């Protein structure tokens, strides 16, 4: 990350100086703190709000209900995972991801990884099949409410900041399904190669 970051900044500034865009460079650097503050306010305070809503869901047991509803799906996706604790962490991780709250999903996600490692049949350094499937589910995972994106669009005065979410849901669903199918395909292929 460090190298990419330095690379982008150095190349851009040199290019800007060579092509004589002094004004634009200086002004945008000076405008950064305010711009950053505005963006972070949009991000963090919308996250605060949705975290509040999600906490109500946790405390009232609605998340558990959602997790239970996801159970048959989880059986289909990870038929070999019988461990209750790991399943619990995985379901609440997926539920938080649905709200586009990736960071709120991280604690339960890391717990799920730890648990999966404890029951992993593989050696120390190798990912188990369940870990791979779980992370694909996580990264290609379904985001029902992209809260941050809506907040940004709202802050710039979009007429209907939510107009894209249905298409986003379709996109995320298809990406999730194809990720899971590809996961199966590669797992079977690896199994064949072993024999």
């Amino acid at each position, binding site marked *: *990350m460090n190298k990419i970051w330095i690379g*982008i900044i150095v190349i*851009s*500034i040199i*290019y800007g100086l060579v*092509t004589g*865009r002094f004004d634009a*460079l200086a*002004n*945008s*650097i000076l405008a*950064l703190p305010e711009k950053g503050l505005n*963006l*972070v306010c949009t*991000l*963090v305070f919308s996250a*605060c709000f949705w*975290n*509040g*809503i*999600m906490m*109500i*869901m946790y*405390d*009232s*047991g609605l998340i558990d209900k959602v997790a239970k509803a996801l159970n048959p799906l989880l059986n289909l996706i990870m038929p070999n995972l019988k461990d209750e604790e790991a399943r619990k962490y995985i379901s609440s991780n997926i539920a938080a991801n649905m709200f586009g709250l990736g*960071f709120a999903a991280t604690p339960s996600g890391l717990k799920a*990884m*730890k648990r999966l490692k404890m029951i992993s049949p593989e050696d120390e350094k190798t*990912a188990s*099949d369940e*870990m*791979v499937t779980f*992370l*694909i589910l*996580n*990264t*290609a*995972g379904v985001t029902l*409410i*992209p809260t*941050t994106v809506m907040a*940004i*669009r709202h802050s*710039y005065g*979009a007429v*209907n900041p*939510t*107009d894209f979410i*249905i*298409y986003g849901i379709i*996109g*995320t669903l*298809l*990406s999730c399904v194809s*990720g899971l199918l*590809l*996961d199966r395909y*590669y797992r079977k292929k*690896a199994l064949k190669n072993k024999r």
Partner: protein
Amino acid sequence: MNKVSLVFIPLLVILTIVYAAIKKKNAYASFLNGTKEGLGLFVEVFPSVMAMLLAVTMLEASGLITDIKTSLKTLFPAINMFADITPMVLFRPISGSASIAVLDNICAAGADSFTCKMASTIQGSTDTTIYVLSLYFTSVGITKWKHALKVGLMADVVGITVGVILSLLFLK
């Protein structure tokens, strides 16, 4: 169709609160707790957003992106509308803050523009795959990832493609 998504948000809020009321839970206290917990993010998120904003803003202000875009446009006229979202697509798997910074720039230019809508759709249908994988795997000391990275990125490509097609069809 777009009306449906407008109803979705208030419906979700009322459903949550009514459910808590039926279960006789203190929804008010829970909401306060959750919101307070979220505040900690400010300190956590602000530095990385600032850093990424610096990189993305320099890319824009130096004219590098604009010049690449204009030369691409003269070479391939059809690529026109995708030129704006290319930086976001490239940053998306590596850093959530960076892709959000690009999205912020795009939507600042017009929150109802087609580019902003398309970028939002893509942002909604993909994830920071490389970042998440390295965070989760390193947290438990796993170095052999099997096919996780390959499949994660392929799923992102599917998400991006579907996002582009759907926004071309319905949001233009």
